[in-house]
């Protein structure tokens, strides 16, 4: 079934498979951003590792391994999602597990409110925001990972940010740094609770 590899890795080039452990945490964090569920995220990382391992010859040594791994992970996520069709979003569990620790109480955007809004975004929007806003990827790396043009990354990120702002009632022109907004944020989270 498995064919022996035709070439032995040369000594001077590091086998990319040896580098996989260095990317596990980032893979998991990215998987969490997409799935918002730690069990699903772990399964996704597991599938990604197996696929990466068995397709490692397709990786071009010297290029960005993390971007390559992220690509496998998100492609797996979206293809599983298409197959499953039915989605079972379960943001409650992850909130209960992770949120209680340190909400920002300095008049700024509360972490709670942010998480609720973040969960309501589409995975595509969460993906682009995490890639360009948190993972340290450049727009180019994000574009490579998502297999779209750089311009698409930028416009998708803008739409995602606008969507978040809308959900959080952060309208442009409103000074959210000011103290006036603490009450409206509080009111917002109250009404959100009632609606749920």
């Amino acid at each position: 079934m498995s064919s022996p590899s035709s070439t032995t890795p040369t000594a001077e080039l590091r086998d990319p498979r040896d580098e996989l452990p260095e990317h596990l945490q980032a893979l998991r964090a990215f998987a969490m951003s997409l799935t918002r569920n730690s069990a699903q995220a772990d399964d996704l990382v597991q599938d990604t590792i197996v696929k990466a391992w068995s397709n490692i010859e397709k990786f071009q040594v010297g290029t960005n391994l993390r971007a390559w791994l992220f690509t496998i992970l998100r492609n797996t996520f979206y293809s599983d999602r298409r197959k499953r069709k039915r989605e079972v979003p379960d943001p409650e569990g992850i909130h209960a597990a992770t949120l209680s620790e340190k909400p920002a109480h300095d008049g700024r955007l509360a972490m709670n409110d942010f998480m609720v809004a973040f969960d309501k975004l589409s995975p595509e929007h969460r993906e682009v925001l995490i890639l360009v806003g948190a993972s340290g990827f450049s727009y180019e790396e994000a574009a490579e990972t998502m297999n779209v043009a750089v311009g698409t990354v930028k416009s998708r990120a803008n739409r995602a940010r606008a969507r978040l702002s809308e959900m959080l009632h952060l309208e442009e022109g409103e000074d959210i740094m000011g103290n006036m907004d603490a009450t409206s944020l509080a009111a917002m989270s109250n009404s959100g609770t009632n609606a749920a």
Partner: protein
Amino acid sequence: MTNDMADDKSKASIKEQINQNLKRVYDQALNEDVPDRFKDLLAQLRAKEGGK
């Protein structure tokens, strides 16, 4: 300050706050311990490869 200045400031501030929160969300997951199952899996894959 003029309204325009306030607008620019708040727009940049919204983006900055969103990014700060995104980083918090991401870092939270990043700082979790990697489950042993992944290290075990890598060891298994490695063993399969080596066992020729």
